């Protein structure tokens, strides 16, 4: 069977499974549509959160980021897991006790203000839409490489599949497809990693292989990797970073941003009890950690494999001839994600770090610049081919990458559509809408969101790569502080919360735009995005944490200068703190 047929089989098979689940789990009521009926088991929910959370960024991009940055990019590992500690202790159980359908609904009720709810809706939509573009674009890459269809065609196929199970099943359909998608993506991620760990270290568990000896050289594998890449002018993989402040703030931004992302929070509304919300945060992190503990091993091993492919005789000998390059390099060249230019005309591939410090060594070897550009996003997808694994593993990776992208896209689309139908339409425009009417409105707004996301995924507005900065910055600087203060303070009032959200958000956006361009339009940035220009060395990616602190300070200052919240709001705060008396998510 050809590789193409194998890929079709895996991807087609997994899609058929998702659609079958959707037909089985059709939503009959708004409660089904928004919170899957409220009866999801905490372990099941943990698994669904795992798929909801682990996006194309976690599955496709993260190992590539760590491979490129080494220790410095451990921020993603800590940041994207540490947020679950905050969710479990500071938000999830209380919001579950509150027992409504959406995140803006809590903010609107707690701060007794339609404006507060509206600000929350806008933050939610901007954060979720930017995030969903990345998922659709990731699905497009996977399709164009593995199924040999045009990326736009691939996107439309993906959109149709999401449409079927998300619009039909709502949260109920999404929950059970996410469980299936988790299984597909974790198997797809783990199997190649196990093979590669065995090949390089003899240890079948990648997370342990990372700290084991490299079989071929007898050295610890991280030592071997350091040696190989420093020979080629790169920094040591395990090198410490100088700017600790920025590393701390970036990690903190990712953590509180994770805790404030609405598509993750609403998953906690689906369990029966407050105690289950706590357990499901733990289970979610267990399922997430299965991938996150493997990712750093994949990163270092794939980078070592890549170097060994280019320098089969060792870094002191000549690299391979371009004509002898392995098949996977040829395949990825056709997508443009690997590019070769023979700068010194010797027909070989010189891959090294082209910096002034390495200049004299490069000249001594007759090198005239780095000749191979490898897009770091291909690392996980190309991993099985780099390690010469059998064809079915490649088919599995294709299905896994799509499962990661589609499961997150569906979660985001649900968060967007519930904000539109429940917070905007039922909350403001037409409060008397019937249950049936609201369910129809939810389905229509999700359909519109899918069309918009597909269009933007096919025509990325140039800022798709900045999604992380924007989505996490917004969630960290606006939603997380408002939610936390709503639970932990009885004193913060409507004026304080709204001022805090707006000032935190404005500060964060301005800092990002100054370096990244206003509304990300190229050339409109006021300062070049380089460490020398950053205030105190804080990168625009790390600014969300400062925005959150400003939000807290402003909210408390304004609240203490204005009147106390009314008694019924203080009673509401009391009631979310104590589990007794919780009911299922209710619609009133």
């Amino acid at each position, binding site marked *: 069977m050809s590789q193409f047929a194998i890929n079709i089989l895996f991807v087609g098979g997994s899609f058929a499974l998702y659609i079958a689940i959707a037909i089985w789990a059709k939503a009959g009521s708004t409660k089904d549509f928004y919170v899957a009926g409220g009866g999801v088991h905490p372990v099941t929910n943990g698994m669904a959160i795992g798929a909801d959370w682990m996006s194309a960024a976690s599955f496709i991009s993260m190992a590539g980021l760590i491979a490129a940055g080494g220790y410095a990019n451990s921020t993603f590992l800590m940041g994207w897991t540490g947020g*679950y500690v905050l969710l479990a202790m500071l938000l999830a159980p209380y919001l579950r006790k509150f027992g409504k359908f959406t995140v803006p609904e809590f903010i609107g009720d707690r701060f007794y203000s339609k404006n507060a709810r509206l600000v929350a809706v806008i933050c939610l939509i901007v954060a979720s839409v930017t995030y969903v573009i990345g998922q659709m674009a990731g699905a497009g890459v996977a399709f164009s490489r593995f199924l040999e269809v045009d990326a736009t065609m691939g996107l439309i196929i993906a959109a149709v599949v999401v449409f079927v199970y998300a619009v039909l099943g709502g949260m109920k359909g999404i929950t059970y497809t996410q469980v299936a998608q988790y299984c597909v993506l974790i198997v797809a991620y783990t199997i190649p990693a196990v093979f590669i760990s065995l090949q390089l270290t003899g240890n079948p568990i990648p997370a342990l292989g990372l*700290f084991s000896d490299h079989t071929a050289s007898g050295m610890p594998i991280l030592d071997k990797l350091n040696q190989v890449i420093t020979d080629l002018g790169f920094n040591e993989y395990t090198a410490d970073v100088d700017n600790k402040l920025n590393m701390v703030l970036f*990690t903190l931004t990712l953590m509180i941003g994770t805790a404030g992302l609405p598509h993750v929070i609403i998953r906690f509304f689906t369990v029966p009890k407050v*105690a289950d919300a706590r357990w499901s945060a733990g289970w979610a992190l267990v399922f997430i950690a299965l991938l996150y503990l493997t990712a750093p091993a994949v990163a270092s091993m794939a980078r070592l494999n890549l170097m060994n492919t280019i320098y089969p005789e060792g870094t002191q000998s000549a690299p391979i001839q371009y004509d002898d390059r392995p098949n996977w390099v040829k395949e990825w060249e056709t997508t443009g994600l690997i590019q070769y230019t023979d700068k010194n005309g010797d027909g070989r591939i010189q891959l090294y770090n082209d910096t002034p410090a390495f200049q004299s060594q490069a000249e001594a070897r007759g090198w005239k610049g780095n000749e191979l550009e490898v897009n770091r996003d291909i690392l996980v997808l190309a991993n099985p081919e780099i390690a010469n694994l059998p064809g079915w593993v490649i088919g599995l990776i294709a299905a896994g990458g799509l499962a990661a992208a589609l499961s997150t896209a569906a979660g985001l689309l649900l968060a967007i559509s519930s904000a539109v139908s429940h917070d905007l339409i039922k909350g403001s425009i037409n409060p008397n809408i019937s249950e049936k009417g609201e369910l129809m409105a939810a389905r229509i707004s999700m359909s519109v969101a899918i069309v918009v996301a597909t269009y933007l995924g096919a025509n990325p507005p140039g800022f798709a790569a900045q999604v992380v900065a924007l989505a996490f910055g917004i969630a960290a600087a606006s939603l997380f502080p408002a939610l936390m203060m709503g639970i932990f303070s009885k004193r913060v009032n409507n004026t304080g919360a709204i001022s805090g959200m707006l000032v935190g958000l404005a500060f964060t956006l301005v800092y990002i735009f100054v370096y990244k361009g206003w509304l990300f339009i190229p050339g409109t940035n006021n300062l070049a995005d380089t460490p020398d220009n950053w205030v105190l060395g804080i990168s625009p990616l790390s600014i969300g944490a400062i925005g959150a602190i400003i939000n807290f300070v402003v909210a408390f200052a304004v609240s203490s200068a204005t009147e106390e919240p009314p008694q019924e709001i203080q009673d509401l705060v009391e009631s979310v703190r104590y589990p*007794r008396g919780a009911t299922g998510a209710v619609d009133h």
Partner: protein
Amino acid sequence: MSHDPQNAVEYWKANLRLIVGCLVVWAFVSYGCGILFRPLLAGIHVGGTDLGFWFAQQGSILSFIVLIFFYAWRMNALDRKFGLHEE
């Protein structure tokens, strides 16, 4: 609330103490061992690198899992102790 207000206050204080304790550990393993104290831990070798690297790439994640389950277990017990658990 139909319950004794003092009981509820004690419950909430116990919850806050537990959260603060857990978050101190949370910050210590990630921001502490994984980032700020890494130079101090450089002498402790773990498979080709040092303990700080291990905390940044694996140790902090494993600690987070233990923390959440510990918190869930303690809080669910406190709910019952104070009679504030769900029926």
